[in-house]
């Protein structure tokens, strides 16, 4: 099953800062050419993990290998990695060309090789002609492209991306996401991305590792994690979710909202059911669904491609969030606040998760 050795593995990594367990028994294997994201809120241990891979922190226990070689105690400059920082971290006293050539120069490449490679890399990141400029003369996006070129020119064994787009505005961020992803796939570079932005993680990654409290809660392809979250934390951190906690009674879950049909047999007596807002059906189409819920629309907001509704269920007062595609061709018209509507979802679109809904 595991023919190709992993490009990067972390085994049983632990790191404590004082009394704080920053990374707790973390295991991760990244296949060659894959981009894996460490996604989580601040303080979840994702940056510490990246810095241990880079070699700037050293784990208290556990092992890190790159291309099968144990690098746990190796100095950062011996690991053959490339890194892009959120703050770009270009050398302000060197030109664009000198910045890109830096890694080659450290490796002792000839002047000619340096010049050729710099030209090739700057062409790839669309910055030809900026060779002699200084970083301060470039825009944020251009600086990040130089940083990318500088990291890639040395053919890193693994490319480390530390919130690389965090300092850019939204529009630029999205186009850079595509650009970096396209380049990473074309060059077949193994990459580890640290981010707290779920959209960035979903649009760029082969696999996402959702981290919380120094552990990986769930690892999988973006759509996998989105459609089949295993925990309430993942369900709410990656996207939005309606969570219903309750006790199992036969094939139903007794919740505050009522007895809801279960998509599968839960392991224990209590369970939490997660339903994505875009799976929730409002209006006549829901009257045939098994939940048989009704609610009143308490808030509606138009968001371009879809509209978001808050529905308060009759009887229980439980709040449900629902998204509806703004598609008039399907006969979907907007629903007014105060309208009473049937509410439901296809049973198979509910997902059983462990853990409780975060307290509001």
């Amino acid at each position, binding site marked *: 099953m595991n023919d190709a050795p992993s490009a990067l593995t972390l085994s049983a990594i632990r790191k404590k800062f004082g009394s704080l367990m920053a990374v707790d028994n973390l295991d991760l294997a990244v296949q060659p050419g894959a981009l894996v994201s460490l996604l989580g809120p601040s303080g979840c241990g994702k940056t510490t993990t990246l810095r241990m891979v880079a070699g700037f922190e050293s784990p208290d226990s556990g092992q890190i290998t790159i291309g099968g070689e144990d690098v746990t105690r190796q100095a950062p*400059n011996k690991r053959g990695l490339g890194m892009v*920082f959120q703050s770009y971290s270009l050398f*302000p006293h060197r030109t664009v060309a000198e910045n890109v050539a830096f890694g080659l120069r*450290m490796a002792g490449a000839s002047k000619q090789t340096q010049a050729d490679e710099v030209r090739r890399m700057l062409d790839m990141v669309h910055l030809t002609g900026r060779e002699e400029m200084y970083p301060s003369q470039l825009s944020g996006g251009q600086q990040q492209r130089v940083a990318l070129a500088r990291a890639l020119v040395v053919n890193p064994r693994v490319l480390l991306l530390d919130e690389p787009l965090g300092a850019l505005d939204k529009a630029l961020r999205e186009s850079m996401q595509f650009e970096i992803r396209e380049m990473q796939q074309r060059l077949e570079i193994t990459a580890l991305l640290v981010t707290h932005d779920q959209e960035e993680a979903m649009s760029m990654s082969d696999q996402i590792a959702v981290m919380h409290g120094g552990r990986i809660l769930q690892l999988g392809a973006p759509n996998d994690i989105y459609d089949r979250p295993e925990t309430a934390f993942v369900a709410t951190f990656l996207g939005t979710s309606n969570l219903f906690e309750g006790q199992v009674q036969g094939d139903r879950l007794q919740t505050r909202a009522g007895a809801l049909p279960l998509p599968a047999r839960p392991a224990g007596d209590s369970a939490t059911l997660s339903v994505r807002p875009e799976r929730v059906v409002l209006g006549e189409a829901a009257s045939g669904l098994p939940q048989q819920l009704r609610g009143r629309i308490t808030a509606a907001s138009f968001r371009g491609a879809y509209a978001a509704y808050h529905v308060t269920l009759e009887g229980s007062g439980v709040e449900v969030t629902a998204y509806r595609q703004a598609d008039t061709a399907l006969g979907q018209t907007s629903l007014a606040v105060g309208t009473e509507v049937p509410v439901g979802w296809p049973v198979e679109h509910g997902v059983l998760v462990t853990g409780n809904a975060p307290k509001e």
Partner: protein
Amino acid sequence: MPNLVHLSAGARRALLLAPALIFLAVFFVMPLADNSARSFLAEDGGFTLSRYADFLTDRFYLGVIAETVILSAVVTLISVVIAYPVAYVLVRKAGRFSGLIVFLLIAPLLTSIIMRTFGWQVLFARRGLINQWLVTDLGLLDAPLRWLNTPGLAIAALVHVLVPFAVLSIASVLQGVDRRLEEGAQMLGASKLRTFFEVTLPLTTDGIGTGAILVFMIANGSFVTLVLLGGGFQTLPLLIYQQFNTTRDFALASTMSTILLVIALACLWLQLRLLRRQGV
């Protein structure tokens, strides 16, 4: 008294600055100007450059200028070399002890330089503490060494006085160097030492420059240390003192003061240029 609130911003600023400016003008600029003017005043009351011509063509005086500048340069070099590691430890390694280090650096400045120089005399006198240790307590030497009035001790004492200025100048610039830049260099294959010379040092040259100019300027005008510890140095400040107090040739003293002032102004100009470049 006019109501400050009703004045324009410019007038208000001028009014607030006035006391300090007047004080400086009366007690600093005027005496300096008077002193410099004296050097251009001929015997018959006219204007003359002859003293400068005489001074700058005299081998002895040129030697004194050279000695002053060379001594200051040596002191500056040693101070910067000592100060850089101290600044590095202060900024990068000291952590919660950095406050203590800054205190230790600044504390000597709270004492008069005369007291500190006397301290050196006490320590290094023929029957001073150092000789007593070396000869009596440790038995390393048969006879006490002559420390006072050696060039080495005078230079050491000057360095001791001036190192804090260099440390503080370098530390303030080092503080502003983004550690990610150093990490970036290491990721690209640079060893720690290489990173220092490729990234850290070039990014702190402004601090080194500012510190060096500051130390050089103060060393150039230093007087007390050389008077008390000797060392056989014949520098401009010592010569000026001689001319004023012993020879009573005020005109020549003024000429030398003006030359010292010009050197100081040149340093100041250099420093401003450095600071301006930093601001870009």
